């Protein structure tokens, strides 16, 4: 374990820079031709425009097109191969959660009907805990047991939970945030759970859509080798333009997950169900096959404990899925500052988890994803620099029909991919540039995350507190 640690940032971003440098070198070697001079023209007989018919040669267009598609298909195919190999494997020592191993261990045994115990880790969540519990109790197949894991609460969270008729587990001397509190609760609860007594972990600021639990139960009933069902999250309404940016992002992610037929990237901390066997086996392999302390379900050193648990389960061969009906609505960050803190934690956590696990078949997809983001940072930055240079250098506004055409394709993709998000989502996407700005913001977060890891600065959790009026926001550390 611990193959990369602080070098992970340099390895990933360095890889992206290397890719970009190779492309630039190839361009220099093929010596691009001089800039063509724009022409004048008249549009609709009245509007005089300056335009430039400059477009790359068909060979270049085809090569770039092919390269992108081959790279994307290659990553997807390799990921499928690795997943299928793990799915069919029968190596109990290396992959103790692989379907064949689990099915052999449970053949002919009926462990009782499926039950659901929900754990809601909560640190001062009085503003939303009531609504979260109500959404659970209102499910078409409500959970059998709800436990609010109150972690160092100084507000009314435990009282609100008790008055709603659910159990409260209070963490004792916990200094390891959410993961530490969940570990304490799971240590107490897991020993009493049979193979079909599922454990669901969900955030206090999340509301389950109706049908989530019914669909998840059915999946778990049909396949006793299935170790986890993850939720698909959508952003809550409100919070203006910033909220819409985040909702669009989540809508696209959910669409992508459906196109992947539910093959999981991350078992989201917002709401995911686990078979106790999966959690027990993970806890038993920490300190050997997996990072962390033996006996802990969650690795308390991970900034993104849900992402880490996903990797842990995948590395042990566990089957998991995010079915389309399992949707949840989660909080969107109300300010740019809060979003910055959230994304820095996600980004840094994802990179640190990768550094911890190293290059494994099961982490291949995540490496490719991080390299892709790194390359995207370079591509978008160079695009913005180019546009800025042209704006400050050209004497007159020049239209480039070829590139405008590509811009239209982008707009269509942006709109199609958020279509389900409604009119506001579609209009914002069609404008293209606001979302480019948002993407650039996330890119800056990415670079900051890489720098922080490389320079070894201390990672800290930030907690966003939303007041009763849902407006007052405090970011505390």
């Amino acid at each position, binding site marked *: 374990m611990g193959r990369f640690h602080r070098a992970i940032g340099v390895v990933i971003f360095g890889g992206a820079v290397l890719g970009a440098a190779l492309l630039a070198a190839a361009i220099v070697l093929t010596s691009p031709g001089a*800039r063509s001079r724009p022409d004048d023209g008249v549009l609709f007989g009245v509007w005089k425009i300056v335009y430039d018919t400059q477009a790359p040669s068909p060979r270049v267009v085809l090569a770039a097109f092919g390269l992108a598609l081959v790279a994307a298909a290659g990553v997807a195919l390799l990921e499928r191969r690795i997943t299928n190999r793990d799915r069919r494997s029968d190596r109990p020592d290396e992959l103790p959660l692989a379907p064949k191993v689990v099915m052999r261990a449970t053949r002919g045994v009926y462990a009782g009907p499926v039950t659901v115990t929900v754990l809601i880790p909560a640190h001062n969540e009085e503003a939303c805990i009531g609504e979260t519990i109500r959404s659970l109790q209102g499910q078409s197949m409500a959970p059998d047991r709800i436990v609010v894991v109150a972690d160092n609460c100084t507000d009314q969270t435990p009282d609100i939970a008790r008055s709603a008729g659910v159990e409260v587990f209070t963490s004792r001397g916990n200094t390891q945030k959410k993961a530490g509190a969940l570990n304490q609760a799971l240590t107490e609860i897991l020993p009493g759970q049979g193979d079909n007594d599922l454990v669901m972990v969900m955030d206090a600021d999340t509301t389950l859509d109706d049908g989530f639990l019914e669909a998840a139960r059915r999946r778990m009933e049909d396949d006793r080798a299935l170790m986890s069902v993850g939720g698909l999250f959508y952003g809550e309404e409100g919070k203006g333009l910033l909220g819409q940016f985040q909702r669009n992002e989540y809508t696209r992610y959910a669409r992508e997950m459906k196109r992947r037929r539910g093959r999981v990237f991350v078992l989201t901390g917002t709401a995911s169900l686990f078979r106790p066997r999966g959690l027990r086996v993970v806890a038993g392999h920490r300190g050997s096959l997996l990072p962390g302390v033996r006996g802990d379900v969650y690795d308390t050193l991970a900034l993104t404990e849900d992402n880490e648990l996903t990797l842990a389960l995948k590395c042990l061969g566990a089957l998991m899925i995010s079915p389309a009906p399992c949707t949840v609505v989660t909080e969107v960050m109300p300010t740019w500052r809060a979003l910055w803190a959230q994304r820095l934690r996600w980004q840094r956590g994802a990179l640190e988890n990768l550094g911890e696990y190293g290059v494994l078949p099961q982490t291949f997809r995540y490496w490719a994803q991080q390299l892709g983001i790194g390359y995207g940072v370079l591509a978008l930055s160079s695009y913005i620099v180019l546009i800025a240079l042209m704006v400050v250098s050209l004497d007159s506004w020049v239209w480039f029909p070829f590139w405008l055409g590509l811009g239209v394709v982008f707009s269509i993709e942006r709109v199609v991919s958020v279509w389900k998000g409604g009119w506001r989502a579609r209009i914002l996407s069609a404008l293209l540039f606001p979302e480019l700005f948002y993407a650039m913001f996330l890119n800056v977060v990415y670079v900051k995350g890489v720098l922080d890891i490389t320079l070894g600065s201390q990672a800290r959790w930030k907690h966003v507190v939303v007041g009763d009026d849902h407006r007052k926001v405090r970011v505390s550390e």
Partner: protein
Amino acid sequence: MRVLPLGILLPDSTLDHTWFAVLSAFVAINTIMYTALALAKIAPKIYLSDLVHRRDRRTTNRSIHPAPDD
């Protein structure tokens, strides 16, 4: 006629440098690559495994309820 009063910061000749040609070619190729990916995302996703006969269809009972022959 000038449509917009631009070009106030850098001379027009800035764009004639080789490094600008390299930058614009780099951006051009990236733009085409990302357009290809955008098109792939608009198009419905096709799974080749749907079109061919599947040999690896599940043959054993995986339900939590044991089958009589389990």
